[in-house]
């Protein structure tokens, strides 16, 4: 390959193998942010165990001048800092790649491959020698590889120092000792004079000027604050916990009133049944309410999701998907709760699902979700996953909402008066399936109604009448149809298509985008449609009609999105071929290409 001759610039894929709880989270962060600071597009993906201390974890830093942020299969550089996984890790690096290891002790000869180069840095010894406090040594050993990688690939010492200062702000002691370790690694390589030809990083002036780096859960947290979330209920569960925890950290800055009181309540529930019931109670009472969960929690919420749907209570549910079924792989990513979101609960339901594909859209959809929920008086899902939610990535900065709150058909006392002192909770006045709504505290004598999960008529009275019931279900379905044109539309990326179309959604978008470029270089140009919500809308039908061969990229086993689309568009069902990649690893473009075109 060409790269063997002239080492590529700003196209490096580094994997760092460490142990959980060993302090590598910080060192990886420093490394990642340094690449960002150099102006090079980059993503940082953490493959961590469902454990607190001692199990293996891998961190992928991909620098890509072309701006590909998905995981890359081929690893250029492997940093071996976990003895427990040495043997397997050695095999992971591509032929021609580089292995950086701790040569405080020699590498077992069996682990020496001929087709890769090895560079040693005696981190353990260096730390033992230079760091006085023994309790710091274990954690800071990881900083040594930061320096070594920095030196090897051309990250200026100054940049790493700046990042350290940004990160540890007002803790000079921490900055100092970390800096010392980074320098140990840096200088060791410098002294060795070792070079490598795997690739280099070169600062791109203003390269990331209009970019931010963050995690999707943080984007949702900030978005929810801008969406006006006031009642936040939750029960901790990986990988969703950080979403609410970010809110806990951030919300006080914006939501304290002049008496120091909170314009919000964040309630840690005793379980997900309670979390979702609280959400429904708060939504009924008129608050912008939300919760955040993952698969097992979503399963537990099913009954009350149906209640909210049938009673027509707004609420926003963030679902950060992980590897299912059951407890599954809590620290791996998947898109496998689609059916349970879209058709969740017993009986006929159809739920609105918003599907961000990067941090900036996560922010947008997080605040929009509250508007959608209020307008349609129904639970709205924001479909995230671990890859999007917990990994560092670049995106455009968050854009200020371009419109005021939409609280939908929420009537004030004056509104009721203006319409002749009449109000029917479940009457479809406008033909869009959406009735009017009041909330407790509205003192108009006609405002109150009795909400119930059992059959009810347009005046919210109990009813078992079969015609009333059928009409109610039909209206609910009509509401879903109305939502079709309200939710975000797909984005189509057309090119010189050969009749092949790719469809992606959520975290599959980024690797699909890259896969499309790769396929084009292989003579298989394809168009690409990004789904951004359920119900599907806009150009989807056209896209299906105009492409004979369509691959729908899904991170699940059974083609859950495919099932929905095939049912919605039976005339094109046979064209839609699911590409199911569900091993729990962040999706890589190479896997998509291989699935469609076959291994080269």
């Amino acid at each position, binding site marked *: 390959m060409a790269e063997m001759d002239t080492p590529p610039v700003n196209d490096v894929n580094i994997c760092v193998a460490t142990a959980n709880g060993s302090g590598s989270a910080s060192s990886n962060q420093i490394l990642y942010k340094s690449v960002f600071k150099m102006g090079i597009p980059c993503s940082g993906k953490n493959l961590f165990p469902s454990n607190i201390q001692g199990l293996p974890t891998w961190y992928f830093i991909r620098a890509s001048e072309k701006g590909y942020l998905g995981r890359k299969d081929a690893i250029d550089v492997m940093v071996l800092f976990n003895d427990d996984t040495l043997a397997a890790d050695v095999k992971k690096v591509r032929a021609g790649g580089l292995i950086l290891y701790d040569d405080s002790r020699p590498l077992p000869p069996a682990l020496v491959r001929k087709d890769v180069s090895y560079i040693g840095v005696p981190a353990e010894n260096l730390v033992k020698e230079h760091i006085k406090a023994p309790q710091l040594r274990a954690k800071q050993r990881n900083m040594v590889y930061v320096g070594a990688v920095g030196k090897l690939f051309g990250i200026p010492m100054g940049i790493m120092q700046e990042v350290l200062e940004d990160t540890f702000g007002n803790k000079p002691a921490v900055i100092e000792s970390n800096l010392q370790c980074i320098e140990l690694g840096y200088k060791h390589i410098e002294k060795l004079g070792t070079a490598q030809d795997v690739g280099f990083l070169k600062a791109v002036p203003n390269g990331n000027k209009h970019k931010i780096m963050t995690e999707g859960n943080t984007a949702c947290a900030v978005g929810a604050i801008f969406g006006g979330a006031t009642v936040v209920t939750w029960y901790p569960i990986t990988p969703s916990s950080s979403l609410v925890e970010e809110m806990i950290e951030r919300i006080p800055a914006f939501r304290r*009133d002049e008496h120091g009181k909170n*314009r*919000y309540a964040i309630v840690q*529930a005793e379980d997900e*049944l309670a979390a979702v019931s609280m959400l429904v109670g708060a939504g009924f009472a008129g608050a912008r309410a939300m919760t955040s969960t993952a698969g097992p929690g979503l399963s537990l919420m099913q009954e009350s999701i149906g209640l909210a749907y049938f009673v027509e209570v707004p609420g926003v549910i963030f679902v950060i998907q992980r590897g299912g079924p059951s407890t599954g792989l809590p620290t791996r990513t998947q898109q496998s709760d689609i059916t349970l979101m879209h058709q969740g609960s017993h009986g006929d339901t159809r739920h609105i699902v918003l599907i961000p594909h990067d941090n900036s859209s996560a922010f947008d959809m997080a605040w929009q979700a509250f508007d959608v929920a209020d307008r349609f008086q129904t639970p709205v899902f924001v479909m995230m996953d671990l890859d999007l939610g917990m990994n560092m990535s670049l995106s455009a900065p968050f854009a200020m909402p371009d419109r005021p709150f939409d609280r939908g058909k929420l009537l004030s006392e004056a509104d009721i008066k203006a319409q002749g002192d009449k109000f029917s909770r479940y009457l479809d006045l406008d033909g869009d399936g959406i009735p009017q709504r009041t909330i407790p505290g509205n003192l108009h004598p006609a405002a109150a109604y009795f909400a119930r999960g059992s059959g009810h008529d347009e005046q919210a009275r109990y009813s078992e009448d079969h015609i009333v019931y059928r009409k109610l279900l039909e209206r609910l379905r009509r509401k879903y149809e109305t939502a079709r044109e309200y939710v975000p539309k797909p984005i189509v990326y057309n090119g010189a298509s050969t009749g092949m179309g790719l469809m992606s959604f959520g975290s599959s978008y980024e690797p699909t985008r890259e896969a499309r470029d790769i396929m084009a270089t292989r003579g298989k140009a394809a168009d690409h449609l990004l789904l951004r919500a359920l119900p599907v809308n806009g150009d989807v039908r056209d896209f299906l009609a105009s492409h004979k061969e369509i691959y729908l990229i899904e991170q699940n086993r059974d083609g859950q999105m495919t099932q929905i689309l095939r049912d919605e568009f039976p005339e094109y069902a046979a064209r839609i071929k699911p590409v199911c990649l569900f091993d729990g690893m962040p999706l890589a473009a190479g896997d998509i290409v291989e699935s469609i075109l076959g291994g080269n």
Partner: protein
Amino acid sequence: MTEAARLEPQVNHIHLAKKDYEGAESTMCKGCGHDAITASIITACYESSIDPRRVVKLSGIGCSSKTTNYFMNQSFGFNGTHGRMAALATGAGVANHHMLPIGVSGDGDTASIGLGNFAHMIRRNLRITYIVENNGVYGLTKGQFSATADKGSRAKKGWVNPWNAIDLASLAILMGATFVARSFSGDRKQLAPLVQAAMNHNGTAVLDVLSPCVTFNNHEGSTKSLKGIREMKDDLNEIDFIPEFEPIDVEYAPGKDLRVRMHDGGTVVLHKLKDHDPTDRVQAMSVVEQGMHEGKFVTGLIYIDETQPDFATQENVCDTPLSMLSEAELRPSAKDLALINESFMR
């Protein structure tokens, strides 16, 4: 009744007649205890001059849970899912803490499927009047034992219950409830003032109200039949509730009687029938235990603590209900967002 009726004024302090506190027609079986409780709730709200528009009625699923529909038509109501009323109320309560929540549940709803959420609601001291219409049976599903059925009790179908009953009053005290009472659907004189007091309590008020299911649990061999309850009922105290707007002119015997000023106004006057101090938590636990031991249902105000902050207070919620906050109060500015974006560039 006739006597009371004669004395009753036509309208109350806020100029509402008693019928203004009524709801839809009941669909309970004739003679069901639940209907009697509904009547006491109506009386209590009328007597306390509660504004129905300030009330939110909440319930789970069961015959009992249906009854929120049978009082105060002018109030918002939410008949949710089985066992989750406590959590539903928590959400509604924190969203708008100016409303007065009245929750009605059954023993199945609270002591079986809802036990965990009930316990945690108490722990948070959510402001609510939580009434359990306790008949020891699943009425709506036709007569299976609930978790409050007594050991050895016989079901209509002939089955005998092998398990000990869960005592909701002592459980509530153990979980930290700040107002715990027990009463009987048939004793409106005791029940109505208890409901009045509960509504003025700033925290979770648990009312465990024995309420015979005349259809499925009113036979020989049942301990929660009308007859059974009458025989086992044992009053701790007589209770009067004097609303804020009325002069406290009840007889008062120092030593024997006890006055408690309620957080939200009004005063409870207790005439002790037993030597029991309802402000003593340990005594409260043991008086219930002791009663059970002796095969009695201890009734009356069992425990009260007016000093604890309620959930919304503890959560430091602002005065304007969260549900009423405007966009201006909720959405940070573009400048705020710019700062956030900037922090993500470092």
